[in-house]
């Protein structure tokens, strides 16, 4: 059988193929990625899109956790100050209930409790990054203002709503307690109790029951702090979950789209060897034919 007398086109196409392999390998080595365009591996490219989406979401959840944590820590430490302040009010009340005190002694204690009232208003008007934390969702207005005509001595301008925020694909949590629940809860109204203490100190009557009222408000605030404690615990564990998830997603991304450098380098070496061999074969071919021998 007659054979193809001109193998050069075959050799050139072989050279082109190995050259293409070399280019692909070099590209993978330099980028560290096995998928640079979707056609390299369509399924992997699609998975990488979803992986990138999940990674971006996890990163965002972590940022949101950070923001919420900041706000909650502020709220919690402010409530701690409220608790301390109420303890001081209780001591003052117990002191004022002492029968040996005269009117002017009680009046000066009452003045001190009025100072506490102002202090509590200021604490309840905690603002974090431009928003009032204890105003429900009416965060652009200070929720408490002193008002001597009000029975509790203050007016609550906030609402009773709260916000919930998503910090995981299937995880969201409440981020705030409105002042109406914290400070103005019926039966354990902080401001009502303080106002009642001031009034009773000034009048010299019912001081004991006013102190009891403050104690119950104190217990109420302490109980409400559990909400912030729990939420911050949840945020902490969500944060470590998200960090783990981010790491896993990064590993997954590497598994799907990362270049296997050991394999790529070995491919590159074999492609280069093959190219070398083909080039040598080309140089050898057609060096001689019968014409060279005709004298």
């Amino acid at each position, binding site marked *: 059988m007659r054979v193809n007398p001109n193998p050069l086109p075959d050799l050139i196409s072989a050279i082109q193929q190995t050259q293409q392999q070399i280019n692909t390998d070099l590209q993978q080595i330099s980028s560290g990625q096995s998928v640079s365009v979707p056609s390299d591996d369509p399924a992997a490219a699609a998975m990488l*899109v979803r992986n990138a989406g999940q990674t971006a979401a996890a990163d965002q959840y972590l940022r949101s956790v950070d923001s919420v944590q900041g706000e909650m820590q502020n709220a919690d430490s402010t409530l701690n100050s409220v608790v301390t302040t109420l303890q001081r009010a209780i001591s003052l009340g117990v002191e004022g209930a002492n029968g040996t005190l005269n009117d002017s002694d009680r009046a000066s204690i009452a003045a001190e409790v009025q100072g506490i009232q102002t202090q509590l208003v200021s604490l309840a008007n905690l603002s974090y990054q431009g928003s009032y934390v204890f105003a*429900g*969702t009416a965060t652009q207005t200070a929720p408490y203002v002193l008002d001597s005509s009000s029975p509790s001595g203050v007016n609550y301008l906030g609402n009773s709503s709260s916000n919930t925020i998503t910090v995981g694909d299937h995880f969201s949590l409440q981020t705030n307690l409105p002042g109406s629940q914290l400070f103005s809860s019926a039966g354990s109204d902080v401001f009502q109790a303080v106002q009642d203490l001031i009034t009773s100190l000034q009048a010299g009557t019912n001081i004991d029951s006013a102190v009891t009222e403050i104690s119950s408000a104190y217990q109420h605030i302490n109980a409400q702090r559990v909400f912030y404690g729990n939420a911050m615990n949840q945020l902490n564990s969500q944060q470590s979950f998200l960090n783990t998830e981010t790491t896993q997603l990064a590993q997954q991304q590497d598994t799907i789209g990362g270049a296997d450098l050991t394999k790529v380098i070995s491919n590159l070496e074999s492609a280069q060897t093959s190219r070398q061999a083909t080039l040598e074969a080309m140089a050898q071919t057609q060096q001689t034919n019968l014409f060279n021998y*005709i004298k």
Partner: protein
Amino acid sequence: MSSLNASLATALSGLTAEQGALQATTNNVANANTPGYSREVPVFVASAPIIVDPLTLGSGVTLQSIESVRDPILESRIQQETQTQGQWTALASALSQTQVNFTSGSGDIGSAISNFFNSINQLSTSPADLSLRQGVVTAADNLATSFNVAANNLAEQRTSLNGSVEQSVEQINQLTQQIAKLNGQISNLQNVGEDAGTFLDQRTQLIDQLSSLVDVSVIPTDNTISLTTANGTALVAGQQSFQLSTQPDASGVQHIFAQGNDITDTMVSGQLGGLIQARDQEIPGIQAQLDTLAAGLANAVNQVQTGGYDLNGNPGTNLFNAPPASGTGAAASLSVAITDPSLIAASSDGTPGSNGNAEAMFALSTQGLIQGQSPTDYYSGVVFNVGNASANANAEQSASAQVLQQLNDQRSSVSGVSLDQEAANMMRYQQAYSASAQVITTINEMMQTVINMKTS
């Protein structure tokens, strides 16, 4: 005397024939690297014998013809495979440009979708914060831009494919004209019994070129050939060629006409087939998916947005300008309707600190908004489709290249010029020529002997 003269004539026929054969070898060697050239072989035939009773004497050799060595079936297989090759090459090249719009990186649609929803989640942590609201507006703008850029690139690519279609048609017309002209030259030669090898080679070469552009069938007729497209549209009939023309439709898409008929949809193979497939099927398919995604996303966001309240407590208005009801062109025209960040309807109750509606908007990121899929999942499907189409075209293209190479090898093994073979032939012809010359010398000496015999 008469038989010596006859011998002289016989020896001369050998000289002439070997010279002619050497001409074939010379031509072969000269054309060793000419694309499409088929080697020529001399056809020697023993001349009719002279009967001188009782003897039958040979009268030498005739170089009957010089024929090109070719395998018509192989050539037609090469033409078919060239069509396939042309189709997949055009498609693979178009799709490799298309998929650049879908590589991951900054500015791609996938990250723009993520960034948009992330900005909403961030806003959720502090819904009255104007800088976070501005973040949402910016992210929405970027999202719209990423859709616009991809959609515009696809539209531009279609326009440039349109130009390629026109160019291909022009090339086809030139080739069919040349083939028709060659048909004339070939039948002129064949009518007088000559071998038209060189013209046949040229014609084969032109048909190969034509095959890479369009799906042609070669139909041999009396002494010539006709060419038609796969659906039977005539391109060449003997010495006449039929021109194709292009005409744009209302949307500017060039249609191909042959003798008044629109044959665009019948073009399936060859470069033209590949270009049309990319222009009229693959790219519009991707455009439609982008439109579905853009419209689905914009409508869902608008619906949530209009169900909430902005920073001033007013009912929300559309965040994105409403996409066309049909969805067609949604990706190219996606744009943000608001510039004032306070108009983002994050609140579900009208108070500025409420994030209920922002949460509802963020929840869209994982909802099955578009054909039951979340926006990111749907987009990942688009990326898969684009990548798959491109990978498929690449694979088909390289498979077809391999087949074509094998066929060309085979053709070369039949028709290619082997310098070894030509050198050997040259030696054979030279030796035979020398031998014939020697015979003439000998006859001459014999004649001298006869002449000398008479005078002495």
